[in-house]
């Protein structure tokens, strides 16, 4: 990771990416001419109004969708399908109700045909660290929403991706759990040096979690602006999301992005 930072190679790069959906009624342009570079270890948030193609962008980076124009690269290699370097956390946990917590956490490793002994060990470690040690053999329905989303995080990290894509991963949770889990997840991803790309429509979430916020325009989504988020905290380190919400700079960033999103409630 250090070396790639020196050579300046981006962890994730999009070059002139466009995506059009085809339907019988015509074609819909979802994304247009998107070029982005994301450095290793960077935590980037992508915000925009609903329907602007934010989630589509993640599907392109993860390789489950192919762009109609341009190309996506991870570590300088063109993405042609899902790779082990990229982990994807969806809007809800989508735990399989017929699998135990541990079996859910090793799903990715199982699909990728990884060494299952090692995967189980890693999953147990991750789950234990997230306070789910005594629930390994429980079923998903026995867990609360916040716990389930932690299992989903363990499932994503169990395959040891370098890049973690987060598609509004807290949107299904109540606001308290949401803020607490944002702290936990950010801390975990930073500590493990993951490159993270968070998609959200929640400006507060974006400003408090990420060090860079990219705003997408309305459909077709294009990069409208790109902001570095800096908090002048005492030791120069990045504050945790909850602390960031109370930092003096927070409101400035929040209001700036709010204006830029041109949110108009339509009658």
């Amino acid at each position: 990771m250090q070396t790639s930072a020196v050579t300046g190679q981006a962890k994730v790069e999009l070059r002139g990416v466009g995506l059009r959906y085809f339907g019988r009624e015509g074609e819909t342009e979802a994304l247009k001419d998107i070029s982005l570079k994301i450095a290793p270890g960077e935590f980037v948030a992508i915000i925009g109004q609903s329907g602007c193609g934010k989630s589509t962008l993640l599907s392109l980076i993860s390789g489950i969708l192919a762009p109609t124009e341009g190309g996506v690269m991870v570590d300088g290699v063109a993405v042609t399908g899902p790779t082990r370097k990229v982990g994807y956390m969806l809007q809800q946990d989508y735990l399989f109700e017929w699998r135990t917590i541990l079996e859910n956490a090793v799903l990715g490793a199982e699909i990728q045909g990884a060494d299952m002994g090692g995967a189980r060990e890693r999953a147990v470690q991750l789950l234990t660290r997230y306070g789910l040690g005594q629930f390994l053999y429980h079923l998903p329905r026995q867990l609360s929403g916040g716990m389930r989303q932690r299992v989903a995080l363990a499932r994503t990290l169990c395959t040891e991706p370098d890049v973690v894509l987060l598609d509004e991963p807290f949107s299904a949770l109540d606001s308290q759990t949401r803020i607490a889990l944002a702290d936990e997840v950010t801390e975990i991803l930073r500590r493990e040096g993951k490159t993270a790309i968070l998609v959200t429509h929640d400006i507060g979430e974006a400003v408090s979690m990420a060090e860079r916020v990219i705003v997408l325009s309305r459909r077709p989504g294009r990069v409208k602006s790109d902001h570095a988020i800096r908090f002048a905290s005492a030791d120069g380190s990045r504050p945790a999301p909850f602390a960031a919400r109370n930092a003096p700079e927070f409101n400035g960033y929040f209001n700036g992005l709010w204006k830029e999103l041109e949110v108009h409630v339509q009658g």
Partner: protein
Amino acid sequence: MSKVETSKVETAPAAGATPIPSPQYRDWLRQERRTRLTIRAAQLAILIVFVVLWEILPRAHLINPLFTSYPSAIWPTFVEMLKATPQQPGILTHTWATVLATVVGFTAAMALGVAIASALWWWDALYKVLDPYLVVANAMPKTAFVPIFYIWLGAALSVYGMSLAISLFITILMIYSGFQGIDPNKIKLAQTFGASKGQLLAKVVLPGSVPTLIAALKVNAGLSLVGVVVGEFQSANLGLGYLIVYGSQILKMNIVMTAITLLAIVSSLMYLAIAWLEAAVMRRR
């Protein structure tokens, strides 16, 4: 005495409940129990009233006993028919023939149904092409094919054929619609890990469709029994369906009613077996 005391003290805090049930809770439990018993009693009462009327009405000559026989005549008839005669195998052989054809029929319908529904899920174009034919095949009265099956397959096999034919199409349609009902996000999740189509089927679609499979089993077990009995009406010289036709032709209602009672028992046992299977599988969910 003291042993009981200590074990109580140990378990009570772990369970997290009040050690002594409150009077209100005890009242609630008693109420619950009473409701449950009342339902059971009512169920039993219906059966008893039915059997008693069946016994009394013909004896009082309010119904012609030639048409209905009596419940009290069934057991003696059953015992008498246990023995095989030169013309007839024993009644248990008849029952076994019906049960076997039913089990083979619905097992084959389940296996083929899962295989064909999987193929339709795999190749969407195949489903789009076959959809109207499946719907029509399902709506066709399969019993219309009994004489044809008899000509095509012969006496023994036509029963199995009818048992399968009557339950296959509904099984395919039910299982396929179960596959369609799988949350697409679960499939997307597996795809983010790079799952192949076979892995999607094996790890998401099939295990996620277990409740549908059980619902399909419930439907086609009953239908297969119908298929077997109707098949036996026409073609067999064995089985409960055959006994019903035979008994009615020689106007021996005892035989007919005994065979029908056995069919009722077979259906009940199948129902219990499936309910047990469902409980065993659903405990995991």
